[in-house]
């Protein structure tokens, strides 16, 4: 590569060290400013939301149904809906995701079908969440007749989460030392016995970390659930998987969209609760990861 700035037209080399180092210092400061911008944005966002939402946080806010009167409105049904989603999405996405990951890492032959499967999974991870909503609307709500139920919503979110769980589980399984597997095979264990007793226990912390992170993304999802028709005004507890439901992000969306200012603070209150839930989930994932790293 030519270096025009180092070899000026005259042909004689002039190092110009001071100037070049000044440029370097300016560049370093700009890069540092970029990092500062990112961190500052995060701080401003968190502070702004907390400042707006702290006023409405109370036990009543957590245990009341939504209401047309801002003073009496709460997020009880939204919390229950989000808990339903967490439970059902885990039950669906975790076994399917780990199963697919085990297949790809331990069973799959090296052929076009496996390659297609792998490419397909990474492409699915990049499909916009709203497209999953369209899929859920057509398949679960209409075709399978589940209606606008908890089950239809959870199935949609499970499909959305699945590629992320598969990719995370694959990474965890790949990290299992092959000596461990070979020792198991050498003692006469079958493939499944090796996976069941050696590969899965060793990779489980990594799999769980990835699953929790994927799940925390699902908990924050709004668009696909709006698509499948999760309602915003639910003044009852969704008790069965066939009930109508709402979730925290939809309740937040609804309140943010409201033209009346008191509802905006309710939205901020909902955001604080949602962020605390996500923080707890991420903290769990990090703790698991640290424990796992110490073990190896």
């Amino acid at each position, binding site marked *: 590569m030519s270096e025009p700035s180092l070899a000026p037209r005259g042909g004689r080399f002039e190092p110009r060290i001071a100037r070049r*180092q000044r*440029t*370097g210092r300016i560049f*370093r400061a*700009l*890069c*540092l400013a*970029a*990092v500062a*911008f*990112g*961190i500052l*944005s*995060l701080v*401003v*966002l968190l502070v*702004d*939301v907390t400042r707006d939402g702290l006023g409405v946080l109370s036990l009543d806010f957590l245990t009341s149904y939504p209401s047309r009167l801002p003073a009496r409105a709460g997020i009880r049904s939204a919390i229950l809906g989000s808990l339903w989603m967490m439970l059902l999405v885990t039950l669906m996405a975790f076994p*399917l995701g780990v*199963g*697919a990951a*085990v*297949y790809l890492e331990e*069973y*799959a032959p090296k052929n076009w079908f496996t390659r*297609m*499967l792998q490419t*397909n999974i990474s*492409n*699915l991870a*990049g499909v*916009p*969440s*709203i*497209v999953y909503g*369209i*899929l859920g609307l*057509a398949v679960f709500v209409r075709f399978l007749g589940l209606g606008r139920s908890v089950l239809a919503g959870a199935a949609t979110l499970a*499909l959305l989460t*699945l590629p992320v769980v*598969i990719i995370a589980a694959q990474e965890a399984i790949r990290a299992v030392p092959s000596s461990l597997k070979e020792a198991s095979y050498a003692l006469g264990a*079958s*493939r*499944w016995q090796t996976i069941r007793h050696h590969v899965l226990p060793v990779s489980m912390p990594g799999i769980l970390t990835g699953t929790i*992170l994927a799940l925390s*993304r699902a908990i*924050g999802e*709004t*668009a696909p659930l709006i*698509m499948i*028709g999760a309602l915003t005004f639910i003044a009852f507890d969704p008790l069965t998987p066939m009930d109508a439901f709402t979730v925290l*992000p939809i309740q937040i*969306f609804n309140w*943010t*969209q409201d033209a009346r200012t008191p509802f*905006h603070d309710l*939205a*901020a209150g909902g*955001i604080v609760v949602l*962020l605390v839930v996500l923080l707890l989930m991420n903290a769990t994932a990090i703790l698991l990861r640290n424990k796992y790293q110490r073990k190896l």
Partner: protein
Amino acid sequence: MSETATSLRARRRLALQERIIGALLLGCGVISVLTTIGIVVVLVSQSAGFFAEVSPIEFLTGTSWSPQLLPRSFGILPLVNGTLIIAIGSSLIAIPIGLASAIYLSEYARSRTRRIIKPILEILAGIPTVVYGYFGIMFVTPILRAIFPQTGIFNAASAAIVVGIMILPMVSSLSEDALNAVPRSLREAAYALGSTKFEVSTRVVTPAALSGIVASFILAISRAIGETMAVALAAGATPRMTLDLLQSVQTMTAYIVQVSLGDTPYGSLEYQTIFAVGLVLFLITLAMNLLSQRFTKRFREVYE
């Protein structure tokens, strides 16, 4: 004798069990293929009814989108325009700031600093998009209105800013991974030739990691195109052929949300528009993801 028979039977049972388990696990993997097939079948079959009434040429080249108001018109370009404004606006924030952050983290920061800062920046990507929508309306828009009084309550600029912040960690983390993968020998060779740190970073390391960096850009833009709630809240719902960032626009995603929030009758032409718009959205993001994978693959081939 009987002992051998039992062990033979046990072994057969084990082999059968192995086969069943293998098939079950394959089944788990096949679900992901079924998901893709499902997406394609739903989008194509449901928008077929729409394209029977509206010609694809009118749909793809029309400059007016008004599926509800008479006279109805179904030109998707205003929605594409809205999507592009947000995507370009947000990448103007995320790409330079993200790349500069990546260079700082990879080339200048100590490894301890990097281990702390990188996850902090990644929190930005983990915050739900509806929160960015709230932040856009309640925090960014009032600031914009104080600076430019003509700013609308809903405007493209606030949406582009918050989406830019949201996709920032995608650029910074993935680019940092790419920069970090550049072999140390390349840097040392450049230092040995008398380069300053700035020259090593910008003329040796960054070009060497370029394919990974470009892949991160494409992925981030694709994410911005598919982003829904932040733009539905902050950018508003006015399909418009404008380049004015201070006005309200509507993206493809925000339109789909708008229709599904309303009480559009199932099976009507207006209802079918969400599948046609969804199909365009899916194809655009798919193309970008494939492109990004191609870049990533190139970057892997160089150093592994």
